C-alpha cells in the first residue's frame, strides 16, 4: 500500500506541475525575471499548494502515525545555519540559470528530451558529490 500511495503521490504531484505550467522553464524564468516581462504564475502555484498543504500539516501535527499506521517523519532541525543558507544560495543560482528545480526535472525526464538528461545527470552528480563530501566529514 505504501508503494501504491508513493506512486500515486508522484503522479498527482507531476500532474500539478504540468497543470500549473511549472514544468516549462520559460514560465519559471519569467517569474524570476522581475525586470523583464514578469509572470506571476509561480506565486499562484505556491499559494494554491501552501493553502492545501497547510491543512494537511495541521492534520498531521495531531498524529503520531499516518492513516496507514507508519510513523510521521517530520524534520527535527530548527536551526538556521550556514549549511542551509549556503545550500539555498547555490540552489538559487542553479535555478536562475535554467529555470528547472528537482521536481520539474524528473517530470521532464518523461518527455525524453536530451536537454533534460544533461540537467538530470549533472544534478545527480551534484548530489553524489555532496554525499562523498559528507562521508569524509563524518
Amino acid at each position: 500500500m505504501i508503494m501504491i500511495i508513493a506512486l500515486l503521490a508522484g503522479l498527482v504531484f507531476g500532474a500539478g506541475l504540468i497543470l500549473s505550467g511549472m514544468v516549462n522553464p520559460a514560465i519559471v524564468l519569467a517569474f524570476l525575471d522581475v525586470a523583464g516581462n514578469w509572470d506571476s504564475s509561480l506565486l499562484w502555484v505556491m499559494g494554491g499548494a501552501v493553502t492545501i498543504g497547510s491543512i494537511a500539516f495541521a492534520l498531521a501535527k495531531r498524529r503520531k502515525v499516518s492513516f496507514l499506521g507508519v510513523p510521521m517523519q517530520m524534520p527535527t532541525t530548527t536551526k538556521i545555519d550556514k549549511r542551509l543558507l549556503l545550500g539555498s544560495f547555490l540552489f538559487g543560482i542553479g535555478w536562475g540559470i535554467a529555470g528547472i528545480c528537482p521536481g520539474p526535472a524528473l517530470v521532464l525526464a518523461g518527455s525524453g528530451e536530451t536537454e533534460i538528461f544533461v540537467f538530470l545527470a549533472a544534478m545527480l552528480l551534484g548530489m553524489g558529490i555532496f554525499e562523498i563530501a559528507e562521508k569524509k566529514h563524518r
Partner: protein
Amino acid sequence: MNISLESMPWHAAAGGAVIGLAVAVLLLFNGRIAGISGIVGGLFRMQKGDISWRIAFIAGLILSIAAWKFFWILPEIRIESSYGMLALAGLLVGYGTRLGSGCTSGHGVCGMSRRSPRSIAATIVFMGMGFVTVYLIRHVWSI
C-alpha cells in the same frame, strides 16, 4: 506554447492545489514530506527498507507526462538553455539542495505549509538568488 496556460493564473493556482493534494496524500498516508531533492538524495544513503517508496514516487513523477497525455493535450515545453548551462545549473541544484536540505517542494511548499522558520529562510534565499541570477544573465550580461 499554449497561451492560456501562460497568461491565466487560474491554471497556476489549480495546479498548485493539485501539488498540495499530492503533498497531503504522501504526508497523511505515508508520513513523509514530499521534498523532491530529499526523496532523490535519500537514494544515495542506500538504507534498507527506505529505497522502494522513493523509487515509486520518482516513477510517478516520470510517468506523469505519459499519464497526462492519455487524457489531455500536453502544453508545449521548451528548454532553451545550452548544454553547458544545463550542466552547470544541474550541478548547483543537486549540490545546493542537498547541502540546504531542500528545494522548491521541501522548503517552498512543505516548509511554508508548516510555517517552518528554517524553510522560510531557505525559500527567501533561493528565490532571491533566482531573481539576482536571472537579472544578471538577462539584463547585465545579456547571455
